[in-house]
């Protein structure tokens, strides 16, 4: 080819190959791909497609809850403390090594021993570095897990479906061990699983490329290659989708979603996600800790106004800590903007000329929410000052219990109601010394008005229906008493080329699955 011809810029071919899925997504939150450490959205997406787990969700039927994956079946001991899993026969890792009970037990022990950020999902069952090998055991073709006390079986199994439950190829990982790190350094950027895909490359802030695993026990997926490209701008994603350079755009803002209406060959899907938006007030503040003031604040939010204007399509009103679709989630919405009622409550509490400062991170939607609050609060005589900063700046103050008020979001850590109940309504030690920075109730210095015990009881209740009722009750109480006003639940709007079928983003409870996808 001549140089001149080379320079002549031809129109770009605009269709992705039939066996390749190309997705635009913000993936700059990935910090590691080790399932024992990974705790971010984009990282979970990768992990979900690479690692098999003992039990897992079926992407085509998420409502069914957890079901068999690498474990074919399980039994629960009479005292309810030991669950014994029987492994599926004949499953292989991408390396070709067989998936053994030993791999499964070792992977879970490893996650406990490494004690990385998400390890609490397992250690809450009483496991620690010293006892992990006794509590999680492989015997022949079975793995048994013994918890320190009786928990709801559904709670334990739901937790095993989290990213941290990924089963690793022990032989492969230990080949790369450095200084007793159980392969952690290597696994940050490499993978060793038995799932539908294996990792080709992860270039930070650039792309993740996966290729199909021919050994996958459900059969090799139709999409032989999946490329997730980091595209930060919504409008850029939209253009790429319209041009057909990508199959899926995952971070479209409302304007671009609206702009895509009627675009040829493009469909928009809306899916409820687990993330909730909330505001909370610090109970160390003498005025904000008055029950009437807490109530008043819930009447000072223009839920509908925000939902129908700048949040259009991206969030729906949701007033409790369990996201819709979680076990025990309720849809009660007793609060709406009512300035008069709020004024009455404030007067009853003897509060006049209140000035408070809210911490907000500099994300568009949060700033807009904060500004809306500023406006409605002012109507009831509360002056709301905003401290705007990066996520880390604001979070540092929040964790140190230094903010009067926080405008933020929370995503559940695993698909069990305890995940949010244990954060919003559980705080066994409200002292500063407790430093329970992981608990939102503690960060707001709220002693939970008796809900801590109820949350503790619900998590050990064996009967699923009874357990469900307990969460419903906790939430109804929470709604009235808590210094939290839960505002919205996230709706993810995804742009998709119409020929892409069966792409399930995972709903409120899990991550995206690529293996059922066809084109």
């Amino acid at each position: 080819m001549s140089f001149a011809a080379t320079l002549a810029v031809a129109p770009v071919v605009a269709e992705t190959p039939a066996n390749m899925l190309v997705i635009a997504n913000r993936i700059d939150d990935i910090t590691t791909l080790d399932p024992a450490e990974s705790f971010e959205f984009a990282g979970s997406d990768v992990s979900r497609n690479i690692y098999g787990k003992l039990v897992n969700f079926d992407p085509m039927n998420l409502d069914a809850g957890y079901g068999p994956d690498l474990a074919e079946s399980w039994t629960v001991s009479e005292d309810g403390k030991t669950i014994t899993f029987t492994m599926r026969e004949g499953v292989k890792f991408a390396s070709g090594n067989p998936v053994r009970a030993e791999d499964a037990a070792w992977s879970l022990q490893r996650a406990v021993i490494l004690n990385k950020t998400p390890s609490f999902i397992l250690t809450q069952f009483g496991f620690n570095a010293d006892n992990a090998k006794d509590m999680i055991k492989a015997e022949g073709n079975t793995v048994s897990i013994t918890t320190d006390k009786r928990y709801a079986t559904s709670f334990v199994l739901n937790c095993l479906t989290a990213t941290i439950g990924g089963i690793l190829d022990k032989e492969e990982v230990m080949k790369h061990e450095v200084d007793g790190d159980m392969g952690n350094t290597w696994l940050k950027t490499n993978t060793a699983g038995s799932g539908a895909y294996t990792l080709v490359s992860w270039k930070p802030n650039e792309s993740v490329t996966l290729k199909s695993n021919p050994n996958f026990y459900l059969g090799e997926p139709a999409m032989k290659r999946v490329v997730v490209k980091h595209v930060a701008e919504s409008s850029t994603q939209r253009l790429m989708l319209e041009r057909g350079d990508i199959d899926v755009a995952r971070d479209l803002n409302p304007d671009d979603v609206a702009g895509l209406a009627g675009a040829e060959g493009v469909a928009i899907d809306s899916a409820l996600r687990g993330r909730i938006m909330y505001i909370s007030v610090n109970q160390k503040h003498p005025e904000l800790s008055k029950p009437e003031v807490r109530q008043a604040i819930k009447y000072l939010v223009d839920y509908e106004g925000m939902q129908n204007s700048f949040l259009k399509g991206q969030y729906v009103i949701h007033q409790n800590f369990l996201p819709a679709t979680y076990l025990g989630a309720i849809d009660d919405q007793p609060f709406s903007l009512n300035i008069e009622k709020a004024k009455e409550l404030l007067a009853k509490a003897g509060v006049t000329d209140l000035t408070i400062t809210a911490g907000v991170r500099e994300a568009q939607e949060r700033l807009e929410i904060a500004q809306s609050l500023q406006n409605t609060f002012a109507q009831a005589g509360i002056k709301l000052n905003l401290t705007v900063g990066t996520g880390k700046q604001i979070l540092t103050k929040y964790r140190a219990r230094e903010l009067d008020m926080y405008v933020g979001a929370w995503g559940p850590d695993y698909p069990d109601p305890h995940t949010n109940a244990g954060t919003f309504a559980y705080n066994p030690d409200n002292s500063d010394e407790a430093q329970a920075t992981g608990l939102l109730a503690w960060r707001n210095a709220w002693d939970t008005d008796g809900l801590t015990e109820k949350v503790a009881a619900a998590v050990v209740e064996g009967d699923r229906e009874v357990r469900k009722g307990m969460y419903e009750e906790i939430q109804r109480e929470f709604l009235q008493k808590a210094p939290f006003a839960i505002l919205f639940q996230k709706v993810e709007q995804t742009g998709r080329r119409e020929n892409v079928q069966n792409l399930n983003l995972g709903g409120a409870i899990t991550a995206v699955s690529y293996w059922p996808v066809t084109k």
Partner: protein
Amino acid sequence: MAVVENNGNGRRKSPFSSSVYATILKTIGSVLVTMLGLTFVTFIIGRVMPIDPVISIVGERASRETYDAAYQAMGLDKPILVQFAYYIWDVLHGDFGMSLLNARPVAEDIRRVFPATLELATIGTFFGVVLGVPLGVIAAVKRGTWVDQVARVVALVGYSMPIFWLGLMGLLVFYGILGWVGGPGRVGIFYEDVVPSVTGMILIDSMLDNNWEVFRNAISHIILPASILGYYSMAYISRMTRSFMLEQMSAEYITTARVKGLPERTVVWRHAFGNIKVQLITVIALSYANLLEGAVLTETIFAWPGIGQYITTALLSADMNAVLGGTVVVGLIFVLLNIFSDLLYRFFDPRAAK
């Protein structure tokens, strides 16, 4: 090039006078001091900023013990000057530490992202020079005419238009509607990792690999962001060229040259332009440095994985090792480009060396 002579008594005569040595030493000294100062200021800002790098590592749900362990492991419990001394020692050994975000060596990250920016900025500057210099000269020569007005408007628009908006519009028109150019990213998704990475610059790597298909695709991707950066830099270069030229055109020697009956072309290009070359070098070097510094917004819109995007992401995630590493590299480039333009200055205009 200076010739090394033998002065007859067995000792070599130095090719440079002692003042040249002094200048070189002074230059090296000033580079070191500038870099040390820059690093120190960035380091201190990183430490006093109300952000918590530990959370980046352990996450916001971590227990106190995990947090404390990470705090110590990162050396944050040591006095700040000690931390700085350790840091400088490591940097001198080419070690910028590990990125808190992706657990890879920062030096490796920079090696990966910098060529992307270098490629983009070089072509951008090339466009800027090729268009900006003639435009500036013509505007000056035709001062006050419609040509000058048009040139000034073109420059003004380029200078005042938000580059973000310009990028989006460019994408919308040339990629979205007309389909003349490739979309965001350095190369089409199917061409990624096709040619082996030698220099990290896809255009050069694909040429080395003799893979003209990838080369062509890479050109189709770079042409738009580079043109937009080029337009931006053209605006600056043409404005400066115009004002330098105006200054020369009103000088006496130009009048003399015209009186002597020299053709206007010679007067403009040989005499006037010949005299502004030196000043232009500084302008071009500065403009190049600006683009290299990371045209952050351009990189974001075009999903261009360069150093601008790298530093921004690092900053927002409190990944101070990455921020420091990136800042040191960018700072060094700035300093080196300044020295380079200074040297060229001396080369073209020996008076400057005196």
